[in-house]
């Protein structure tokens, strides 16, 4: 864990979540059972629902559990389209999404366009990765029925003005969905205050288990189920409930809630240390994303080392120094597929995208780990410089 700077990809289980999971392993009765054993299972789910609701400022009745953020995003968009088409079989549906959404929103949008007759507008962020409410308003059409803008971006950490977007859309009969997968546990999230119709989350991004998450569905909002089945989750999502995972998610939610304030302060400080360390270690370094600290996740740094192949640097960090970081582009012979669509959307040219790493830290990251990371990056750059010296593209980058 000490060299782990990829918390935005996934987090380990926190101790309370692991404990809750252990405790739940023997609670196996089907919650739908008609006997006493089933009561324990139902209570476990009800408790977890209350915990998750508490974390995101919702009522228990507004939380539906899913298999993760991807299912929640798929459900919100497909379920809204189904519900609207059922109500108004002859009306067209126009969907607006931001260009920096996660694949589980973008791919759904493309599916809806390709297979379900939905008209799609993809709106660009500004150079800092922010979606201005005006950009949403400018994209509106009379048949716009669905808007999806994420709360916080996973790659550059930009936090979108969702409440302002919701305000702008009010009264227009538009379903506003926000993907909050990356925001929860890293900043306060209050679904009701945001004013959205639906909001997705995934436990493994806030120290719960992988393969479980959910959708906040504002009271009164109707969606066609994505998983039709045996009436679980008040008929909204079929499937025998993932008892142990749900219990662990509940514990992770309680834990995240109790730590949030101090975690944020700590992550901010650590990120500053990291930023300063990189600046002093590396001659030429660029930080991507919002300049304003209020508009970015406290734990995320998107860093470009101009002239460097970030893939090679990441490989050295992993194999020679034991650090895990994430890339803006994977090495691939298929240019387009491998380049981060987020970095492209904020206008980074291809060589800059290939020179970019994402460093995402957690609140328990040690100061010493940060110092060692900066040192390792410095050493890695020196090594790369020595290999590339006479043929490198830009001026020397190691300080």
């Amino acid at each position, binding site marked *: 864990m000490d060299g782990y700077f990829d918390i935005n990809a996934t987090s380990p289980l926190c101790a309370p979540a692991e404990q809750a999971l252990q405790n739940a392993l023997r609670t196996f009765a089907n919650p739908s059972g008609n006997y006493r054993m089933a009561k324990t299972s139902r209570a476990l789910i009800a408790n977890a629902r209350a915990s998750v609701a508490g974390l995101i400022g919702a009522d228990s009745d507004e939380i539906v559990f899913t298999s993760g953020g991807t299912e929640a995003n798929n459900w919100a968009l497909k379920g809204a389209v189904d519900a609207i088409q059922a109500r108004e079989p002859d009306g067209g549906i126009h969907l607006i999404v931001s260009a920096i959404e996660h694949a589980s929103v973008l791919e759904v949008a493309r599916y809806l366009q390709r297979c379900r007759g939905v008209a799609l507008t993809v709106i660009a962020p500004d150079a800092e990765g922010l979606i201005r409410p005006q950009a949403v308003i400018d994209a509106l059409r009379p048949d716009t029925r669905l808007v999806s803008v994420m709360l916080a971006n996973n790659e550059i950490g930009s936090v979108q003005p969702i409440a302002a977007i919701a305000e702008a859309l009010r009264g227009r009969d538009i379903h506003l969905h926000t993907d909050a997968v990356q925001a929860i546990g890293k900043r306060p999230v209050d679904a009701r205050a945001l004013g959205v119709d639906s909001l997705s989350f995934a436990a493994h991004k806030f120290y719960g288990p992988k393969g479980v998450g959910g959708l906040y569905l504002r009271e009164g909002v109707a969606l066609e189920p994505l998983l039709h089945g045996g009436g679980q989750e008040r008929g909204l999502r079929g499937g025998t409930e993932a008892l142990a995972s749900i219990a662990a998610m509940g514990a992770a939610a309680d834990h995240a809630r109790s730590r949030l304030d101090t975690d944020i302060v700590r992550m901010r400080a650590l990120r500053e240390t990291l930023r300063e360390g990189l600046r002093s270690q590396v001659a030429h370094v660029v930080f991507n994303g919002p300049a304003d600290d209020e508009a970015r996740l406290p734990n995320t740094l998107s860093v470009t080392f101009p002239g460097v*192949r970030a893939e090679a640097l990441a490989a050295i960090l992993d194999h020679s120094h034991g650090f895990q970081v994430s890339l803006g582009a994977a090495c691939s012979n298929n240019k387009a597929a491998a380049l981060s669509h987020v970095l492209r959307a904020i206008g980074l040219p291809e060589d800059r995208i290939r020179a970019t790493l994402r460093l995402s830290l957690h609140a328990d990251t040690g100061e010493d780990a940060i110092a060692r990371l900066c040192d390792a990056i410095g050493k890695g750059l020196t090594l790369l410089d020595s290999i590339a010296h006479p*043929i490198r593209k830009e001026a020397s980058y190691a300080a």
Partner: protein
Amino acid sequence: MFNDIIVRHFSNPTHTGEIAGASRSLELGNPVCGDRIRVDLRLDGDRIAEARYQAWGCATSLATGNAFCEHIEDKSLSEAANTSATAIEALLGELEPSQMHCVEMLRSLFAQLGSQPDDR
């Protein structure tokens, strides 16, 4: 992900550098991903007395340069140029699809080695 051979070559490269007054230089660029490799040779008669490389690109490209130099150093030019296709492929170990272009680069380097300098 990288196999152990690739890891050894890129994390502890043994043949980086330039050779002042090199007898010969090979140069190569990959138009798709932009990777570049340059190899300087110091020949002692037909013998490759020293091989040094510089590279810019992904980790596997960097490893490719080192693997090439390590393999040819101390061989005769013709022996090195006649390295079999199988031996060339084996030099980098098992690769993932996204790393396959480095075998191409390696083949090009060996091909350049075999062709007369004035062919270029």
